[in-house]
């Protein structure tokens, strides 16, 4: 109840003519044109919308004491748990900042939300694509790229499987390419004559894309596998079948290391097991990937967005949160400082 009232009273001062017009049902149409021009310009944040008519002077006053405004975030479902963990902490400390996060997928987030000026941040499990850059440029949306965390894609086998604990990238590719090996013995002669039982990411996910690009390349992905978006389904499948293999993000394996056996991947320099250390140092190749978030530069011009971005970058080294709660690999101090520098430059530029 108390929380409710705080929001209410503060909301009073910030609700500008926009909401006023919307309130009058009959004039809803007039209200919407107002939002359009607004959100196109500054990324649709709540605190600025009242400026359009210049009626509310108190919103500026209140921003001196406490941050207020809204932050809209969309994008990758992979980055979603990390972003919502950070946002949850931030929202607790800054109750006047409204944060909403949609798990739309990296591409959907760029195309439908970010590059048309609807959101302030877009999360992505891969770098922004060229056509997305063009779309952003068309709509004059500028952005910077921040590394949110590192995910070590983990290939797992059943705990009873004692032969395939180390594999080369080439062997992984044989198992997963579109013209996939049927039996384990097709991959390496000394392995048993048993059928390979495959569990992997659904073909609409970024994990699928990444796996293809970095393991199979031109050879594509087999369609003879159990595809799912959910890590625990893969884990269940692999732990239930002795000759199964699967791959997923680092999180599940990190939080349940005893359920499954991770495969040490050999990229030419000897087998490397996925771990916080090997992923952060870049030893675990080629399966460690960076996760990104893209703040729009114009949004960084607003204090509450800038402050959230700073907080986010500062949290990327927080091992409890990034690894413990979410299961990704935290950034190194070095990376964090680099990211912070990029961010501060952008903020300075935006706030002039």
């Amino acid at each position, binding site marked *: 109840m108390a*929380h409710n009232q705080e929001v209410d009273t503060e909301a009073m001062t*910030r609700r500008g003519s926009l909401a006023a017009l*919307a309130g009058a049902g009959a004039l809803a149409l007039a209200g*919407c044109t107002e939002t*359009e021009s607004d959100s196109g310009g500054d990324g649709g944040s709540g605190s600025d919308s009242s400026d359009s008519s210049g009626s509310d002077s108190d919103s500026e006053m209140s921003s001196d004491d406490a941050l207020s405004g*809204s932050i809209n975030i969309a994008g990758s479902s992979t980055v979603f748990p990390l972003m919502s963990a950070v946002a*949850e902490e931030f*929202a607790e400390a800054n109750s006047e900042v*409204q944060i909403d996060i*949609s798990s739309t997928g990296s591409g959907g987030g760029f195309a439908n939300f970010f590059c048309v000026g609807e959101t302030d941040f877009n999360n992505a499990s891969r770098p922004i694509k060229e056509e997305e850059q063009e779309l952003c440029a068309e709509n004059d949306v500028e952005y910077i790229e921040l590394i949110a965390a590192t995910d070590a894609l983990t290939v797992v086998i059943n705990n009873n499987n004692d032969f395939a604990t180390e594999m080369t990238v080439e062997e992984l590719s044989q198992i997963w390419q579109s013209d996939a090996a049927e039996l384990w013995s097709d991959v390496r002669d000394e392995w048993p004559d048993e059928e390979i039982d495959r569990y992997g990411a659904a073909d609409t996910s970024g994990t699928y894309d990444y796996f293809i690009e970095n393991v199979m390349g031109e050879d594509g992905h087999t369609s003879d596998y159990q595809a799912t978006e959910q890590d625990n389904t893969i884990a269940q499948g692999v732990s239930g079948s002795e000759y199964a293999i699967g791959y997923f993000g680092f999180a599940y394996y990190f939080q349940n290391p005893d359920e499954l056996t991770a495969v040490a991947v050999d990229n030419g320099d000897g087998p490397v097991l996925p771990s916080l250390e090997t992923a952060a140092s870049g030893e675990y190749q080629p399966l460690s990937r960076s996760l990104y978030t893209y703040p729009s530069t114009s949004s960084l011009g607003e204090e509450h967005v800038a402050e959230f971005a700073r907080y986010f970058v500062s949290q990327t080294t927080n091992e409890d949160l990034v690894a413990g709660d979410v299961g990704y690999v935290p950034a190194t101090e070095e990376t964090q400082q680099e990211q912070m520098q990029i961010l501060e430059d952008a903020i300075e530029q935006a706030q002039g």
Partner: protein
Amino acid sequence: MATDNTATTAFGEVSRVRGIVFEYLSFGASVFGIFALAVLLIYVTIDAFDLANANPLWLLTYFITLVVPFLGFCLYSARDPAVTRRALVAAGGGLVAIAAVFTAIEAFVGQIPRLNWPLAYLFVVIIPLTGYLTYVGAQGRAGSVGFGLIGRLLGGTAIGLAFTVLFLVFDARLWFLVYTLGVVPAVLAYGYGRIRSVPTAQTAAVPVAIGGLFVAVFLRPVVDTYPTTVFIYLWTLAVPVAVAGGFVVNARGSRTAALAAAGGPLAVATGVGLLGQPLGLGVGGPNALLVVAVAGVPTAVYLHRVADVGEGVTGLGLPVLLVAGALAGALLVESFGLPAPDPWLNGSFVTEAPSRNAREAGLYPAIVGSVIIIAMVAALSFVLGVATSVFLEEYTADSGIVGALTRMVQINIANLAAIPSVVYGLLGLAVFANLIGFGFGTAVTASLTLSLLILPITIISAQEAIRSVPDDLRRGSDAMGATRWQTTKNVVLPEAFPGILTGTILALGRAIGETAPLIMIGAATTVFSAPTSLFSRFSAMPMQIYAWADFPQAEFRYGVVAAGVITLLIILIGMNGTAILLRNRAEGEN
């Protein structure tokens, strides 16, 4: 038996066995779905309230302090020895039967997961019995008074809370201006025209209201610091509610009682609103004022009526009985140190924001989002639905443009009702979010999409309600020289109103649970604070449930989501229950 008969008589009784088997089969079929759903609901309730870990003594304590007195009250109200006997037999026999069956199953078949016999007894015997006795008890004087009182208290509180939620996104000062400049003059004009029978004044009400609306929007930037929220709530909502309550009591003949019934709750509400927080009561402020006024006035009016009629006054003790029972139970549990279950669905679940940590996760922003959407959907679909059905039923013609239009609309509505909701989501995405530019996942986009989605259902049920108005009434009105609009307004709509309202509420129940269209229009997966404007991104209850169901942790699957499901179902049952009550009352009056 049957074969014997075939051999001897071969007349009429041949297919008796077949007939009996068929009857039971068809009966089994009709309860099959209900039974399946009931089992699932029992499990989700157990999960949401952590009842699997409830100590039997804990259950027993509350059973004795809360349930038994309540059942006693119902029996007292029913005053029917047969019912009392039946209830005792069911409670006692059920206990023995459940315990026996349970022991047998556990001995021969195996453990039933997350269920023990006290819980089975609770769900299989006590809850249906409570439902039945509530129904029977409500027929008696004391019961109807008691439930009427509780209904007004709960309903008033729910409506008051809904208002406070709406003011999170609707500008209270604009509402103040619209109310002062538009609604009040319009009502005055209409009332004046009515009393003095000046038709021009009545007709002027609508233009006056619209004019006031425009002036209000125009003046909004000027009104910046004053009036305060407390004053706005008092003037625009609490006072009108109190005045209306006063009129109702006054109509029953007592001016002093009217003053008391209206003034009492108003004074309390104002006191709580203004002084609550300064005095350190823990509650207070504008929201408390609103809730107290909206719940208090109908309660006071009801109390007056009960006192006036003088029957079933003992029923007024029911709320006291329940509160006392709950307190006594809590006291006993506390003093004996009984381990209490740790329910997922508790106070903080409905007042906190979502969290990655299952124990801290809450549904508050999603509840607010749902309430706001539903309010807008209700307004939109009610107006559109009633207007369309009036057009189809009252303004119809057999030929000409109107006739063609009527037929097209009629066929079209049936087809619209069959279109999958996910396709409506695409419509919202392409038209409201993209083309018109209301934005992805905003409350406006969602409300418009869902309004169109339930529009066919609203129209069809409103049509039925209008059609059930006897034609004689219309003819009578026509014979008095009334125009078509006057007949519709004065005769048809008042008669059909309860039916229309029931249909609309049932349709809204559909809207509140819809998820697929929300996914398509890009509603937010997680929001950490309540929305502040109609154009901010928001989440809704089913959306949040969908997001949580995807979480891998078992605490989310079996705890948080279950609590979310129960919250959603409680709101749904509340809405549908209201609809059914309205329908029954309307049927009772006819």
